[in-house]
Protein backbone atom coordinates (compact mmCIF):
# COMPACT_ATOMS: atom_id res chain seq x y z
CA UNK A 1 0.00 0.00 0.00
CA UNK A 2 1.44 3.30 -1.09
CA UNK A 3 1.47 6.18 1.40
CA UNK A 4 -0.05 9.59 0.81
CA UNK A 5 3.39 11.12 1.28
CA UNK A 6 4.82 8.92 -1.48
CA UNK A 7 2.04 9.99 -3.86
CA UNK A 8 2.60 13.62 -2.88
CA UNK A 9 6.31 13.26 -3.66
CA UNK A 10 5.54 11.88 -7.12
CA UNK A 11 3.11 14.74 -7.79
CA UNK A 12 5.62 17.25 -6.44
CA UNK A 13 8.16 16.09 -9.02
CA UNK A 14 6.06 17.84 -11.68
CA UNK A 15 7.34 21.32 -12.46
CA UNK A 16 5.75 24.42 -13.92
CA UNK A 17 6.39 24.17 -17.67
CA UNK A 18 7.10 27.91 -17.96
CA UNK A 19 9.14 28.28 -14.78
CA UNK A 20 10.81 24.87 -14.50
CA UNK A 21 12.66 25.70 -11.26
CA UNK A 22 9.34 25.60 -9.43
CA UNK A 23 7.54 22.38 -8.61
CA UNK A 24 3.78 22.46 -8.41
CA UNK A 25 4.19 21.99 -4.65
CA UNK A 26 6.41 25.10 -4.46
CA UNK A 27 3.75 27.01 -6.38
CA UNK A 28 0.93 25.95 -4.10
CA UNK A 29 -0.86 24.39 -7.07
CA UNK A 30 -0.72 20.91 -5.50
CA UNK A 31 -3.33 21.05 -2.76
CA UNK A 32 -4.16 17.62 -1.49
CA UNK A 33 -3.49 13.93 -1.84
CA UNK A 34 -5.90 11.41 -0.37
CA UNK A 35 -6.05 7.67 -0.67
CA UNK A 36 -9.48 6.15 -0.25
CA UNK A 37 -11.37 3.03 -1.26
CA UNK A 38 -11.97 4.53 -4.69
CA UNK A 39 -8.27 5.01 -5.37
CA UNK A 40 -5.97 7.99 -5.18
CA UNK A 41 -7.32 11.50 -5.43
CA UNK A 42 -4.98 14.37 -6.24
CA UNK A 43 -6.31 17.91 -6.03
CA UNK A 44 -4.73 20.79 -7.90
CA UNK A 45 -5.82 24.40 -8.25
CA UNK A 46 -5.12 26.73 -11.17
CA UNK A 47 -2.94 29.79 -10.68
CA UNK A 48 -4.51 32.16 -13.23
CA UNK A 49 -7.83 31.17 -14.83
CA UNK A 50 -6.38 31.37 -18.31
CA UNK A 51 -2.96 29.92 -17.61
CA UNK A 52 -2.21 27.44 -20.41
CA UNK A 53 0.32 25.70 -18.14
CA UNK A 54 -2.55 24.02 -16.28
CA UNK A 55 -3.34 21.64 -19.14
CA UNK A 56 0.34 20.76 -19.39
CA UNK A 57 0.58 20.22 -15.62
CA UNK A 58 -2.39 17.85 -15.71
CA UNK A 59 -0.76 15.83 -18.53
CA UNK A 60 2.61 15.81 -16.75
CA UNK A 61 0.95 14.57 -13.56
CA UNK A 62 -0.68 11.69 -15.41
CA UNK A 63 2.70 10.75 -16.92
CA UNK A 64 4.49 10.99 -13.55
CA UNK A 65 1.93 8.71 -11.89
CA UNK A 66 2.05 6.17 -14.66
CA UNK A 67 5.87 6.10 -14.53
CA UNK A 68 5.70 5.55 -10.78
CA UNK A 69 3.38 2.62 -11.41
CA UNK A 70 0.47 4.34 -9.73
CA UNK A 71 -2.89 3.56 -11.25
CA UNK A 72 -6.37 4.59 -10.12
CA UNK A 73 -5.33 8.21 -9.76
CA UNK A 74 -7.99 10.86 -10.22
CA UNK A 75 -6.76 14.40 -10.79
CA UNK A 76 -9.32 16.93 -9.63
CA UNK A 77 -9.13 20.65 -10.36
CA UNK A 78 -10.56 22.71 -7.54
CA UNK A 79 -11.26 26.44 -7.90
CA UNK A 80 -12.16 27.37 -4.32
CA UNK A 81 -10.53 28.67 -2.29
CA UNK A 82 -8.88 30.64 -5.07
CA UNK A 83 -5.13 30.29 -5.44
CA UNK A 84 -3.03 33.04 -3.94
CA UNK A 85 0.70 33.74 -4.17
CA UNK A 86 0.74 33.44 -0.36
CA UNK A 87 0.68 29.68 -0.95
CA UNK A 88 4.08 29.77 -2.62
CA UNK A 89 6.67 28.15 -0.37
CA UNK A 90 9.76 30.01 0.90
CA UNK A 91 11.90 27.47 -0.92
CA UNK A 92 9.96 28.32 -4.09
CA UNK A 93 10.60 32.03 -3.59
CA UNK A 94 14.33 31.43 -3.17
CA UNK A 95 14.43 29.30 -6.32
CA UNK A 96 12.61 32.03 -8.25
CA UNK A 97 15.14 34.66 -7.19
CA UNK A 98 18.03 32.41 -8.20
CA UNK A 99 16.29 31.93 -11.57
CA UNK A 100 16.18 35.70 -12.10
CA UNK A 101 12.53 36.31 -11.24
CA UNK A 102 11.52 38.54 -8.32
CA UNK A 103 9.20 36.47 -6.12
CA UNK A 104 5.82 37.65 -4.80
CA UNK A 105 6.22 39.61 -1.60
CA UNK A 106 4.31 40.25 1.56
CA UNK A 107 3.29 43.93 1.87
CA UNK A 108 6.22 44.72 4.18
CA UNK A 109 8.91 43.23 1.94
CA UNK A 110 10.86 45.45 -0.47
CA UNK A 111 11.05 44.77 -4.20
CA UNK A 112 14.62 43.78 -5.00
CA UNK A 113 16.36 43.28 -8.32
CA UNK A 114 17.01 39.52 -8.49
CA UNK A 115 20.40 40.18 -10.10
CA UNK A 116 22.06 42.94 -8.02
CA UNK A 117 19.64 43.13 -5.07
CA UNK A 118 19.11 46.85 -5.57
CA UNK A 119 15.90 48.16 -4.04
CA UNK A 120 15.52 50.71 -6.80
CA UNK A 121 13.46 49.23 -9.67
CA UNK A 122 10.82 50.55 -12.06
CA UNK A 123 7.61 48.94 -13.27
CA UNK A 124 7.57 48.64 -17.07
CA UNK A 125 4.28 46.77 -17.43
CA UNK A 126 1.95 44.94 -15.09
CA UNK A 127 1.74 42.19 -17.72
CA UNK A 128 4.73 40.06 -18.64
CA UNK A 129 5.76 36.99 -20.56
CA UNK A 130 3.35 34.79 -18.59
CA UNK A 131 0.03 35.53 -16.91
CA UNK A 132 1.67 35.55 -13.48
CA UNK A 133 4.47 38.01 -14.14
CA UNK A 134 4.91 41.78 -14.36
CA UNK A 135 7.86 43.31 -16.17
CA UNK A 136 10.29 45.53 -14.25
CA UNK A 137 13.71 47.00 -14.85
CA UNK A 138 16.47 47.62 -12.32
CA UNK A 139 17.52 51.27 -12.02
CA UNK A 140 21.01 50.32 -10.85
CA UNK A 141 22.17 47.44 -13.05
CA UNK A 142 19.64 48.03 -15.87
CA UNK A 143 18.58 44.38 -15.84
CA UNK A 144 15.02 43.84 -17.09
CA UNK A 145 13.34 41.15 -15.00
CA UNK A 146 10.07 39.41 -14.41
CA UNK A 147 8.25 39.88 -11.14
CA UNK A 148 5.91 37.08 -10.08
CA UNK A 149 3.14 39.47 -9.13
CA UNK A 150 1.19 39.22 -5.92
CA UNK A 151 -2.30 37.78 -6.26
CA UNK A 152 -3.97 37.99 -2.89
Amino acid sequence: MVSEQAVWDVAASVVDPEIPVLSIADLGVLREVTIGDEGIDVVITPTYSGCPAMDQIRDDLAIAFSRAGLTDVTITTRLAPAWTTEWMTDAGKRKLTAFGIAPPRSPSEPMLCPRCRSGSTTLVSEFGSTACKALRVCDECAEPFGHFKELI
Partner: protein
Amino acid sequence: MKPLFVYLLRLGDDRLILSHRLAEWSSRAPDLEEDIALTNIGLDLLGHARSLYQYAGAVEGAGRGEDQLAFHRDEREFFNLVLVEQPNGSFADTIARQFLFDAFQLPQWRELAGSTDEQLAAIAAKAEKEAQYHLRHSRAWLVRLGDGTERSRHLMQKALIRVWRYAEELFWSDEVEEALAGIAVVPESLRDEWTSTVTSGIAEAGLELPATASTRLSGRTGIHSEPLGRILAEMQYLPRMHPEAVW
Protein backbone atom coordinates in the same frame (compact mmCIF):
# COMPACT_ATOMS: atom_id res chain seq x y z
CA MET B 1 -33.49 26.78 -21.71
CA LYS B 2 -32.72 26.80 -17.99
CA PRO B 3 -32.18 30.33 -16.66
CA LEU B 4 -28.83 29.39 -15.09
CA PHE B 5 -27.62 28.01 -18.42
CA VAL B 6 -28.58 31.22 -20.23
CA TYR B 7 -27.03 33.35 -17.50
CA LEU B 8 -23.73 31.44 -17.67
CA LEU B 9 -23.70 31.89 -21.45
CA ARG B 10 -24.29 35.64 -21.06
CA LEU B 11 -21.29 35.83 -18.74
CA GLY B 12 -19.17 33.47 -20.80
CA ASP B 13 -19.97 34.96 -24.21
CA ASP B 14 -18.96 38.46 -23.06
CA ARG B 15 -15.58 37.11 -22.13
CA LEU B 16 -15.01 34.83 -25.11
CA ILE B 17 -15.83 37.52 -27.65
CA LEU B 18 -13.83 40.22 -25.89
CA SER B 19 -10.87 37.88 -25.54
CA HIS B 20 -11.04 37.21 -29.26
CA ARG B 21 -10.98 40.95 -29.96
CA LEU B 22 -7.96 41.41 -27.72
CA ALA B 23 -6.19 38.50 -29.38
CA GLU B 24 -6.51 40.42 -32.66
CA TRP B 25 -4.00 42.89 -31.19
CA SER B 26 -1.34 40.21 -31.05
CA SER B 27 1.72 41.55 -32.93
CA ARG B 28 -0.14 44.81 -33.73
CA ALA B 29 -0.17 46.75 -30.45
CA PRO B 30 1.56 50.14 -30.17
CA ASP B 31 4.53 48.60 -28.37
CA LEU B 32 5.79 45.22 -27.27
CA GLU B 33 4.74 45.61 -23.63
CA GLU B 34 1.22 46.55 -24.67
CA ASP B 35 1.07 43.64 -27.10
CA ILE B 36 1.79 41.36 -24.15
CA ALA B 37 -0.62 43.19 -21.84
CA LEU B 38 -3.60 43.00 -24.21
CA THR B 39 -3.06 39.35 -25.01
CA ASN B 40 -2.55 38.55 -21.31
CA ILE B 41 -5.85 40.19 -20.46
CA GLY B 42 -7.45 38.31 -23.33
CA LEU B 43 -6.04 35.08 -21.96
CA ASP B 44 -7.53 35.77 -18.52
CA LEU B 45 -10.91 36.43 -20.15
CA LEU B 46 -10.63 33.24 -22.17
CA GLY B 47 -9.88 31.33 -18.97
CA HIS B 48 -12.99 32.80 -17.35
CA ALA B 49 -15.06 31.92 -20.41
CA ARG B 50 -13.79 28.34 -20.31
CA SER B 51 -14.75 27.92 -16.65
CA LEU B 52 -18.19 29.37 -17.33
CA TYR B 53 -18.77 27.20 -20.42
CA GLN B 54 -17.65 24.03 -18.64
CA TYR B 55 -20.13 24.77 -15.91
CA ALA B 56 -22.85 25.79 -18.40
CA GLY B 57 -22.40 22.49 -20.19
CA ALA B 58 -22.85 20.61 -16.92
CA VAL B 59 -25.92 22.67 -16.02
CA GLU B 60 -27.49 22.09 -19.43
CA GLY B 61 -26.89 18.36 -19.12
CA ALA B 62 -27.02 17.74 -22.87
CA GLY B 63 -23.42 16.59 -23.18
CA ARG B 64 -22.13 19.84 -24.64
CA GLY B 65 -18.65 20.84 -23.48
CA GLU B 66 -16.76 24.13 -23.67
CA ASP B 67 -15.70 23.62 -27.31
CA GLN B 68 -19.23 22.76 -28.42
CA LEU B 69 -20.52 25.93 -26.80
CA ALA B 70 -17.77 28.13 -28.21
CA PHE B 71 -17.52 26.76 -31.74
CA HIS B 72 -20.85 25.21 -32.58
CA ARG B 73 -23.38 27.91 -31.81
CA ASP B 74 -24.62 30.46 -34.33
CA GLU B 75 -24.80 34.21 -33.96
CA ARG B 76 -28.35 34.29 -32.60
CA GLU B 77 -27.34 31.81 -29.90
CA PHE B 78 -24.64 34.13 -28.55
CA PHE B 79 -25.75 36.34 -25.67
CA ASN B 80 -22.81 38.70 -25.27
CA LEU B 81 -23.03 42.46 -25.04
CA VAL B 82 -22.92 44.34 -28.33
CA LEU B 83 -20.17 46.42 -26.68
CA VAL B 84 -17.62 43.61 -26.63
CA GLU B 85 -18.06 42.60 -30.27
CA GLN B 86 -17.23 46.07 -31.59
CA PRO B 87 -14.11 46.11 -33.76
CA ASN B 88 -10.83 47.15 -32.18
CA GLY B 89 -10.56 50.38 -34.16
CA SER B 90 -7.66 52.51 -32.97
CA PHE B 91 -5.85 51.74 -29.72
CA ALA B 92 -7.97 54.44 -28.07
CA ASP B 93 -11.16 52.70 -29.27
CA THR B 94 -9.95 49.45 -27.73
CA ILE B 95 -9.12 51.15 -24.43
CA ALA B 96 -12.53 52.89 -24.32
CA ARG B 97 -14.35 49.60 -24.91
CA GLN B 98 -12.17 47.83 -22.36
CA PHE B 99 -12.54 50.51 -19.70
CA LEU B 100 -16.34 50.48 -19.84
CA PHE B 101 -16.32 46.70 -19.58
CA ASP B 102 -13.63 46.45 -16.86
CA ALA B 103 -15.45 49.00 -14.70
CA PHE B 104 -18.49 46.74 -14.92
CA GLN B 105 -16.95 43.30 -14.59
CA LEU B 106 -14.94 44.00 -11.43
CA PRO B 107 -17.99 44.68 -9.22
CA GLN B 108 -19.89 42.00 -11.14
CA TRP B 109 -17.32 39.35 -10.16
CA ARG B 110 -17.13 40.69 -6.62
CA GLU B 111 -20.89 40.34 -6.16
CA LEU B 112 -20.95 36.96 -7.89
CA ALA B 113 -18.31 35.73 -5.43
CA GLY B 114 -21.15 35.88 -2.91
CA SER B 115 -23.53 33.89 -5.12
CA THR B 116 -25.42 31.05 -3.45
CA ASP B 117 -24.32 28.90 -6.38
CA GLU B 118 -21.03 27.45 -5.13
CA GLN B 119 -19.45 26.79 -8.50
CA LEU B 120 -20.27 30.25 -9.86
CA ALA B 121 -19.01 31.81 -6.63
CA ALA B 122 -15.73 29.90 -6.95
CA ILE B 123 -15.20 31.02 -10.56
CA ALA B 124 -16.01 34.60 -9.57
CA ALA B 125 -13.73 34.74 -6.52
CA LYS B 126 -10.84 33.69 -8.70
CA ALA B 127 -11.67 35.98 -11.60
CA GLU B 128 -12.15 39.02 -9.38
CA LYS B 129 -8.48 39.01 -8.40
CA GLU B 130 -7.43 39.06 -12.06
CA ALA B 131 -10.03 41.65 -13.06
CA GLN B 132 -8.45 44.17 -10.69
CA TYR B 133 -5.36 44.21 -12.88
CA HIS B 134 -7.52 44.69 -15.97
CA LEU B 135 -9.29 47.78 -14.67
CA ARG B 136 -6.02 49.30 -13.49
CA HIS B 137 -4.60 48.79 -16.97
CA SER B 138 -7.45 50.29 -19.00
CA ARG B 139 -7.96 53.15 -16.56
CA ALA B 140 -4.25 54.03 -16.65
CA TRP B 141 -4.32 54.19 -20.47
CA LEU B 142 -7.50 56.26 -20.46
CA VAL B 143 -5.80 58.81 -18.24
CA ARG B 144 -2.52 58.66 -20.13
CA LEU B 145 -4.14 59.23 -23.51
CA GLY B 146 -6.67 61.78 -22.27
CA ASP B 147 -3.97 63.68 -20.42
CA GLY B 148 -1.39 63.24 -23.18
CA THR B 149 -0.93 65.11 -26.43
CA GLU B 150 -3.62 67.00 -28.27
CA ARG B 151 -3.93 64.15 -30.73
CA SER B 152 -4.15 61.39 -28.13
CA ARG B 153 -6.73 63.41 -26.22
CA HIS B 154 -8.79 63.92 -29.37
CA LEU B 155 -8.67 60.21 -30.25
CA MET B 156 -9.55 59.13 -26.71
CA GLN B 157 -12.51 61.51 -26.53
CA LYS B 158 -13.76 60.37 -29.92
CA ALA B 159 -13.41 56.75 -28.86
CA LEU B 160 -15.45 57.32 -25.70
CA ILE B 161 -18.23 58.98 -27.68
CA ARG B 162 -18.23 56.14 -30.20
CA VAL B 163 -18.49 53.37 -27.62
CA TRP B 164 -20.83 55.16 -25.24
CA ARG B 165 -23.99 54.13 -27.06
CA TYR B 166 -23.29 50.52 -26.09
CA ALA B 167 -22.86 51.24 -22.38
CA GLU B 168 -26.51 51.22 -21.40
CA GLU B 169 -26.80 47.58 -22.39
CA LEU B 170 -24.51 46.65 -19.48
CA PHE B 171 -27.51 47.15 -17.21
CA TRP B 172 -30.01 45.24 -19.30
CA SER B 173 -31.67 42.25 -17.67
CA ASP B 174 -34.82 40.19 -18.00
CA GLU B 175 -36.57 37.24 -16.42
CA VAL B 176 -33.37 35.19 -16.56
CA GLU B 177 -31.68 37.21 -13.82
CA GLU B 178 -35.01 37.58 -12.03
CA ALA B 179 -35.40 33.82 -11.83
CA LEU B 180 -31.96 33.49 -10.29
CA ALA B 181 -32.34 35.54 -7.11
CA GLY B 182 -29.31 35.02 -4.89
CA ILE B 183 -27.44 33.27 -7.71
CA ALA B 184 -27.17 35.95 -10.40
CA VAL B 185 -26.36 39.61 -9.98
CA VAL B 186 -28.94 42.03 -11.34
CA PRO B 187 -26.78 44.36 -13.44
CA GLU B 188 -28.80 47.43 -12.43
CA SER B 189 -27.41 47.00 -8.90
CA LEU B 190 -23.92 47.69 -10.29
CA ARG B 191 -24.86 50.96 -11.97
CA ASP B 192 -23.82 53.33 -9.18
CA GLU B 193 -20.38 51.84 -8.77
CA TRP B 194 -19.86 51.64 -12.55
CA THR B 195 -20.91 55.28 -12.99
CA SER B 196 -18.62 56.42 -10.24
CA THR B 197 -15.62 54.45 -11.60
CA VAL B 198 -16.22 55.66 -15.13
CA THR B 199 -16.88 59.32 -14.32
CA SER B 200 -13.86 59.57 -12.02
CA GLY B 201 -11.63 57.98 -14.67
CA ILE B 202 -12.91 60.30 -17.38
CA ALA B 203 -12.52 63.31 -15.10
CA GLU B 204 -8.95 62.39 -14.19
CA ALA B 205 -8.18 62.00 -17.88
CA GLY B 206 -9.46 65.54 -18.43
CA LEU B 207 -12.07 64.24 -20.86
CA GLU B 208 -15.74 64.95 -21.16
CA LEU B 209 -18.48 62.52 -20.29
CA PRO B 210 -20.34 61.74 -23.52
CA ALA B 211 -24.03 62.57 -23.77
CA THR B 212 -26.34 59.68 -23.06
CA ALA B 213 -27.09 57.52 -26.06
CA SER B 214 -28.21 53.99 -26.57
CA THR B 215 -28.73 51.32 -29.15
CA ARG B 216 -31.74 49.16 -29.92
CA LEU B 217 -29.67 46.04 -30.28
CA SER B 218 -29.82 43.53 -27.49
CA GLY B 219 -26.98 41.08 -27.46
CA ARG B 220 -28.46 39.44 -24.38
CA THR B 221 -31.26 37.99 -26.50
CA GLY B 222 -29.05 37.20 -29.48
CA ILE B 223 -29.64 40.34 -31.55
CA HIS B 224 -26.19 41.53 -32.53
CA SER B 225 -24.35 44.05 -34.64
CA GLU B 226 -22.82 42.91 -37.89
CA PRO B 227 -19.25 42.40 -36.63
CA LEU B 228 -20.21 39.40 -34.45
CA GLY B 229 -20.91 37.28 -37.51
CA ARG B 230 -17.44 38.00 -38.84
CA ILE B 231 -15.80 37.15 -35.51
CA LEU B 232 -17.64 33.83 -35.37
CA ALA B 233 -16.80 33.03 -38.99
CA GLU B 234 -13.13 33.43 -38.23
CA MET B 235 -13.22 31.79 -34.82
CA GLN B 236 -15.40 28.83 -35.72
CA TYR B 237 -14.16 28.08 -39.21
CA LEU B 238 -11.55 25.48 -38.31
CA PRO B 239 -13.49 23.43 -35.73
CA ARG B 240 -16.51 23.40 -38.04
CA MET B 241 -14.46 22.27 -41.02
CA HIS B 242 -12.77 19.56 -38.94
CA PRO B 243 -15.13 18.78 -36.06
CA GLU B 244 -13.16 15.73 -34.96
CA ALA B 245 -9.75 17.41 -35.06
CA VAL B 246 -7.67 17.42 -31.89
CA TRP B 247 -4.42 19.19 -31.05
